């Protein structure tokens, strides 16, 4: 039992014979496969009478040897024969990997594919925007189809449940801006201007932008995953068949909720950032809260607040649309769901930052500086 397989090369009369002995099974082959590869002679007869057990791997080795050397197989019982026959019947070359293409071709193809994919996505997103507008118009004309409950539920998921994490994040960012600003401005003896920095940057840029990034990671991905798994379970198809428009019941509530919640969250984030900055100024720079608030009111123009509040709904629209769009594109398998969720987040953050740059130029051009 514990023996390993072995073989000997002999000459029986004028015929070279290869005799296998012991168990010809995968677990007990030992060095036999390697030794067979460097076989010196060319056996004409393979003798199996010394073999006590055989599995398909053993049978394959015997078959391959017989095939390569055109040898006859002798000995062995019926079941060994049957096994060898079965393995022989399945003998055909098999490719393990798909054909690999050349390096240059591959790079070229990947660049091409990526370009086409980017173009298609933008085009698709535009089309999706159109469908959202059409669905909105249908709901406006026929307000009974307005899904109040779904929207309120999304308010909760997108807005209320995000208050904690968005608040904490903004608070810490406020602290960091105040601290870093103070360190730099101290060199000019102008520490007190750290307040200008906090006030303007949070209302104008960071409050809304960071909130948008957080909401994209929290809700944009959730939209893609929820709608995507509904697509996989054919729930979306079932809705269509029953006569419920997935655009009105799934997409519109999410888009509306995000468009409405993002300005509120953004404003709230700005306030929390001020709180963080103010606290740091009080503790570390000895600026009392009253002075801090007074300074903020002096240095932050109302247009900064408007800038943030105007940008926020647009960011919300982008995030919700990218999430729902990618969710709707899920087809086939669970792997797709993961990929689509990832691209929903990547796309929404990327687009938010691009659009933010356009806004910066625009607001500067109309004199809101």
């Amino acid at each position: 039992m514990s023996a390993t397989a072995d073989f000997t090369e002999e000459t029986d009369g004028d015929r070279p014979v290869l005799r296998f002995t012991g168990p010809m099974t995968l677990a007990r082959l030992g060095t036999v496969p390697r030794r067979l590869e460097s076989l010196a002679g060319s056996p004409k007869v393979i003798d199996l009478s010394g073999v006590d057990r055989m599995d398909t791997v053993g049978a394959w080795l015997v078959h391959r040897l017989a095939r390569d050397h055109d040898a006859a197989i002798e000995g062995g019982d019926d079941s060994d024969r049957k096994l060898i026959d079965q393995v022989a019947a399945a003998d055909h070359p098999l490719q393990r990997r798909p054909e690999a293409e050349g390096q240059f071709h591959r790079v070229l193809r990947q660049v091409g594919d990526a370009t086409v994919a980017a173009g298609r996505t933008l085009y698709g997103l535009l089309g999706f925007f159109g469908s959202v507008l059409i669905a909105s118009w249908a709901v406006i004309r026929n307000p009974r189809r307005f899904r109040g409950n779904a929207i309120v539920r999304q308010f909760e998921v997108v807005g209320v449940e995000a208050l904690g994490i968005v608040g904490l994040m903004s608070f810490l960012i406020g602290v960091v801006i105040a601290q870093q600003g103070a360190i730099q401005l101290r060199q000019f003896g102008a520490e007190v201007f750290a307040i200008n920095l906090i006030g303007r940057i949070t209302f104008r840029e960071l409050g809304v932008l960071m909130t948008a990034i957080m909401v994209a990671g929290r809700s944009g991905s959730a939209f893609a995953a929820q709608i995507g798994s509904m697509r996989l379970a054919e729930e979306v198809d079932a809705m269509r068949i029953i006569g419920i428009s997935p655009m009105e019941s799934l997409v519109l509530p999410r888009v509306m909720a995000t468009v409405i919640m993002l300005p509120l969250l953004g404003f709230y984030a700005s306030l929390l950032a001020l709180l963080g900055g103010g606290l740091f100024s009080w503790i570390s720079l000895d600026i009392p809260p009253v002075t801090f608030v007074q300074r903020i009111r002096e240095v932050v123009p109302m247009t900064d607040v408007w800038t943030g509040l105007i940008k926020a709904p647009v960011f919300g629209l982008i995030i919700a649309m990218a999430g729902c769009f990618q969710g709707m594109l899920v087809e086939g398998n669970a792997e797709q769901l993961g990929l689509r969720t990832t691209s929903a987040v990547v796309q929404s953050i990327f687009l938010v930052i691009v659009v933010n740059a356009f806004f910066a130029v625009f607001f500067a051009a109309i004199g809101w500086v």
Partner: protein
Amino acid sequence: MKARGSDDVIVVHGLKNGFGTQVVHENLDLVVKRGEILGVVGGSGTGKSVLMRSIIGLQHPMEGSVEVFGQSMIDRDDTEATNVRRRWGVLFQNGALFSTLTVAENVQVPLREYYDLGEVLLDEIAAYKVGMVGLPEEAGPKFPSELSGGMKKRAGLARSLALDPELLFLDEPTAGLDPISAAAFDELIRSLADTLGLTVFLITHDLDTLHAICDRVAVLADKRVIAVGTIPELLALDHPWIQEYFNGPRGRVAAEAAERAEAQAEE
């Protein structure tokens, strides 16, 4: 492969399984003999898959003992369990192929894990295994996502046969296949079991499969195995679920089909 060792490959005794307060199995006994194809049937939710999972060690039972090849499978350390795992193959319900590997590479995974065979022999083994389960050679370099349901099952079977196991677990191998593919798959399992001397633990809902390839059938109901035997033996029992199962409209059609097939074989 010639028979050796004890004749009972799987011995389950007094098994109790449950999730939270819900008990799936209680006092379940089952013996699988060497070289037989045992079909396991039972209504939905009677814990057929749970039974398989507790035998192969994926589900920790609350009570009872599970022995495979005479060795207890409960509370074993991993290295010891590995020695038993090498001797069985499992086909999961949806194939459970690794999605980042091609079919050929999937078949090679267990071989690479346990043996040092050299790339040439590995490729050859993958090739004949893929051929044996009836997949065309084009299937080798394909990824699981490019395969149809039936091909996935065959590829899964090829992987479960990779280590030339003595014991094969099949979880609903013909579910979701069209009747022609299902019949072909039944035949494949029967012929592989015959040539390789396999013991097969087969969960199925497919009455045709039961008639065509199973030596014995175990019926799961009331949280335990209520009967084990050949189909005629089971029919002789007076249990309402068994009568309903085998004598219902589908059961009768399957029995007639099996009789016709036998008659044809005799001619």
